[in-house]
């Protein structure tokens, strides 16, 4: 499973790199996975699972999934 933590969410990943790879034993709740990685779910505003927008609550992920998460993004 590949997680891409975009925007300032990269700050929370191990090594502060945007991509996090995990081998999962089976389907897991995305919210639990984020907690395990150290990304506060409260900061996540947009979740794209395999190219489709999904709700963080209730979303499960498994091996071979690609998940992109983003916070609310400002300008500048």
């Amino acid at each position: 499973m590949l997680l891409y933590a975009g925007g300032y969410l990269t700050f929370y990943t191990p090594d502060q790199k945007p991509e996090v790879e995990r081998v999962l034993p089976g389907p897991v709740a995305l919210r639990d996975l984020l907690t395990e990685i150290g990304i506060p779910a409260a900061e996540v505003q947009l979740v794209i699972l395999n190219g489709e927008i999904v709700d963080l609550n209730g979303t499960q992920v498994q091996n071979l999934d690609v998940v992109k998460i983003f916070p609310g993004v400002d300008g500048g």
Partner: protein
Amino acid sequence: MPMKTDFKVLRIDLTTGNIQTEMLSEDFYKLYPGGKALAGYYLLNEMPANTEPYDPENMLIMAAGLLTGAPVSTTTRYVVAGRSPLTYAVGSSEAGGFWGPELKQAGYEAIIITGRAEKPVYLWIKDQAVEIRSAEDLWGRTTAEAQAMIREELGDAMVRVLQTGIAGENLVRFAGLTNDLRHFNGRNGMGAVFGAKNLKAVAVRGTRRYQEIAHDPDGLRELGRKLARQVRDNPLSWELQNRGTPGLIEPLNTSGMLPTRNFRQGAFEKADDIKWEAYEKELLIARRTCFACAVRCKREVQIDGKPSEYGGPEYETLAAFSSNCGISDLHVIAKANELCNAYMLDSISTGVTISFAMECYENGLIGPEDTDGFDLRFGNGDAMLAMIEKIAKREGFGDILAEGSKLAAEKIGNGALDYAQQVKGQEIPMHEPRGKYNVGMGYALSEIGADHLVVAHDTMFENPDSLPFRNAALLGITQAEPARSLSDEKVRQYLILENWNSFENAVGYCFFGPAPRGFIHPDDVLASVNLATGWDLTFDDLLEIGERAVNMYRLFNVREGFTSKDDDLPKRFYEALENGLLKGELIDHDMFLAARAHLYQIKGWDPETGIPTRARLETLGLGGAADLLNF
């Protein structure tokens, strides 16, 4: 003890060569503490109505802020103001870097320039010594050449040079200014006002440290140290330090809010080629910063294997020349950035004026016979680079585009105005208002024409648990609202955020400093002002400083004939986005106008005309301005 300064303003008449210094009272400065607040006061009270932008009587005001140059990260900003040749409204363009702090170190809050020199000149300010020197050898030079020549002539490599470029000399309506070749007063064509005055540059060197004037220098230094330590612990400032503004490409593209092909689309199919990871690999060679700022959001890049003299493209430049023009070659975009900075063009207006021309070309309104033979379609990088050269030099078709998209559209005719993405004549920045309605309201109402820094963006306030939202609570924002909404609550939040950003501008804070956009908690922002001044201000006082400044700029525009009709978005944004996550989304025009009327009302402006009421002006201490305008 209050601030230990006499708040000097330097006045220079380029026609007569007369140089004078005046002192402001602390009570006056408390109402107009720099930046747009101070500039607004002079533009309203001293500049005759109906002064044309290129008239000698147009005032050119360079105003630092109360905190500019303080030992606190992100307090680096200054404003250059006057009547804009691009919008004919109030012109006001801010920048960071080193020039503003140096002006304060020389002992000045502001410089006011009037008149027109007979031949090209530049100003040399070394503390209290001020000279007008010949710039005839500098005219026609790139900004890098001119800066090197000035520093060599003055024998000091640390002189801070604010200058216009070849575009400003040629009166391109969106010519900007640069300091240290890496920091830009890009917007509103203030570089052309320099050019019209035969003023090439203002070189400054000062020796007075901010700590010598601060009310509580030790407290201010301690606060500055604390904030510097927080930069890497705060995700917002960490992101700016790590990626800088180019980091916005990926999240905005994914969210369907990356302006693409002149705002027809919200997602760019080649975004992977221009996003941060590609930028880092292809272009990045170093990171830099502004005066005493720990954020370090500036990028240094290489082009064709050589370090650029001008720094790397920011997000606005990157998007304006890439997705917005359908171009994905990072090296072409970096070259476009370099050309803009060498000739000193505003990269937003340049990119959006070229994308306007590309859409005209693809729809048959113009052809190769108009564009000097160039196939000016979306995606043609060579044609884009050629147009930048032509605009700066006002050659061929560039002479038409140098007028900006609105005036160029009027010359082209045949409905071309529908393709000009501008408000009050200024091109729209790289943020999609169909995804952020308050940003759209800011584009429409901004006194300087379309501007993306009027309010912190809507997407920061959708999630009540997020850090930016929690930091906004002290400002009075406690209810999460959807980004695509203009509810009464959303409009109320707009007013708070507008006044807060306007306050930041006045005192010299960068948009990336204070929360909610930045890492500095509002409590620390307030503390910084009070430690510097000893004024014991409250949040309400800070917001009132911002609101007063907004109203002064508004009054300037009312005086010059602007009406509520000028506070509207281009037709495109009331039509559906063609692709991306927000495909099909549009802004309902009736809803937008109703929200605008409500906003006028809570601002204390007439809900139909948008003219500030006398009652509100008197509350803000602007009764004198109301008298002046016979309100």
